[in-house]
């Protein structure tokens, strides 16, 4: 963006502290009247140097660090990290542990979508929706808490398994919570689709077409809202997603409204996945036997090699590239987060929109600055 401003133009800084995002990030928008002429994203306000930290921690310590990339997708981050080490070391995960992983990761997808959708609703002036979603999210977090022992940063996955088995009576708890959640999601959808003011602010706003989204490397709900059925769980199945029956939720329009609709559908689909898992889950060990690596071995040497493992996080394609040199610490870990390309699409997407729509468009992307900065 050029710093010089023409007649009747001005530059407005949104952020670094702005309710539009969970996490500091700055958007410099050049306005002419109320129209955005040009804009620029400024990152780095929450750069934690996680890639460098991981190079200086043992593999087991790394699990706790990758949680902190973004607390909303802690479990899928762990899955990508742990999956890399498992591929490098050739560790087989027992089937029961795989099912437990799918259950907690889908629960984490539900809670992430609930928070993202609620926050976004408050940006477009629908503050009561935020109260509804945060209430229902608490029930999901309680379920996650009962399995993993923590509400947000779980450190639950281990190389080859999981930390704990499912608690007693978990299936009944899930049945109870999902009964309420299904009704709640129906009511959200009803409120979104029946509110004319809400629709006026979202339908046809911030339209991303399929070709442009692909060109920009977008993944996750913003891409699926344009009609592309790209989902790592289907395209490159990991864990037991191959044995589960679920569909990839897509929408045609690619606007703000469609992105929210995709998230609503995905929450229903995640509940469907969890219920299947609870029906199909076999009994057995949750940690592999006959492996050279113990459940909590603080120092483990991983064979030298390079691997790229990607999973579908709530926001899209999360991938870890790991280079091991045979020592107890990784040589290099690259974190490919889904938010990074999504944030990059904002400047072209915001060109020509009304200034009041900036927060609606940026909020509907459900980006997490903490993950983009790492």
């Amino acid at each position, binding site marked *: 963006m050029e710093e010089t401003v023409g007649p009747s133009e001005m530059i407005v800084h949104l952020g670094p502290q702005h309710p539009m995002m969970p996490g500091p990030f700055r958007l410099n928008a050049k306005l002419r009247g109320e129209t955005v002429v040009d804009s620029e994203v400024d990152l780095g306000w929450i750069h934690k140097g996680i890639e460098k930290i991981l190079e200086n921690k043992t593999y087991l310590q790394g699990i706790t660090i990758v949680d902190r990339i973004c607390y909303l997708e802690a479990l899928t981050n762990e899955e990508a990290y742990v999956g890399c080490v498992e591929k490098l070391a050739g560790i087989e995960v027992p089937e029961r542990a795989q099912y437990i992983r799918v259950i907690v990761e889908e629960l984490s997808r539900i809670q992430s979508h609930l928070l993202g959708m609620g926050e976004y609703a408050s940006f477009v002036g629908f503050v009561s929706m935020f109260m509804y979603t945060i209430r229902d999210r608490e029930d999901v977090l309680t379920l996650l808490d009962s399995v993993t022992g923590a509400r947000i940063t779980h450190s639950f996955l281990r190389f080859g398994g999981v930390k704990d088995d499912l608690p007693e009576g978990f299936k009944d708890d899930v049945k109870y919570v999902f009964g309420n959640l299904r009704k709640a999601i129906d009511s959200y959808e009803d409120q979104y689709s029946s509110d004319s003011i809400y629709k006026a602010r979202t339908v046809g706003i911030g339209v991303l077409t399929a070709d442009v989204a692909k*060109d920009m490397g977008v993944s996750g709900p913003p891409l699926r809202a344009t009609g592309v059925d790209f989902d790592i769980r289907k395209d490159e199945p990991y864990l037991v997603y191959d044995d589960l029956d679920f569909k990839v939720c897509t929408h045609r329009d690619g606007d703000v409204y469609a992105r929210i609709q995709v998230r609503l559908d995905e929450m229903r689909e995640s509940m469907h996945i969890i219920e299947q898992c609870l029906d199909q889950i076999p009994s057995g060990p949750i940690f592999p036997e006959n492996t050279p690596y113990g459940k909590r071995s603080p120092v483990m040497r991983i064979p030298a090699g390079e691997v790229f493992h990607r999973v579908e996080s709530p926001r899209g*394609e999360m991938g870890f590239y790991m*280079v091991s040199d045979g020592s107890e610490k990784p040589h290099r870990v690259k974190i490919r987060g889904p938010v990074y390309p999504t944030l990059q699409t904002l400047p072209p997407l915001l060109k020509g929109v009304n200034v009041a729509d900036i927060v609606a468009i940026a909020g509907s992307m459900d980006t997490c600055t903490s993950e983009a*900065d790492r």
Partner: protein
Amino acid sequence: MDAESMIASLTDRFPDDVYDADIESAIRTAAKVKPENVVDVCRYLKEELSFGHLCCEFGVDYPDRNEIEVIYMLGSYEHPVILTMKALLSRDEPEIESVVPVYWNANWYERETYELYGVKYLNHPDLKPLVLPIEMLGEWPLRKDYKGFPNKTAKNLV
């Protein structure tokens, strides 16, 4: 088109520029590319072999070989194959052509690789730091011989 025929097509088209091509599994392939012609190779991969999705682009430092590897993870929305393409650069003066004209989202990845490793991208539209403060430019913190970690924090900068 499966992984084997993709790699065969790539090495046929660029016999001099692409070397060490390898098929690790049905969905993972690897190749090395000469830094001078990385843009042509990327354009061919995107247009002919439908590798339209740049998963990421980043550097890896090898001080003992005095090399920095720039790795392009190329995926696709049409097929599940991923190509790990590496370009080997000298550690003393790493320079490579920017692939932004082919992959639009390489812009930020290249800015980040520049500030963390010092890889200079030629013909990049806007090569400036992305996540680090401008004062740290020239320190290349993700190189293995960086001494500032973990004591050099933002507090010490001001």
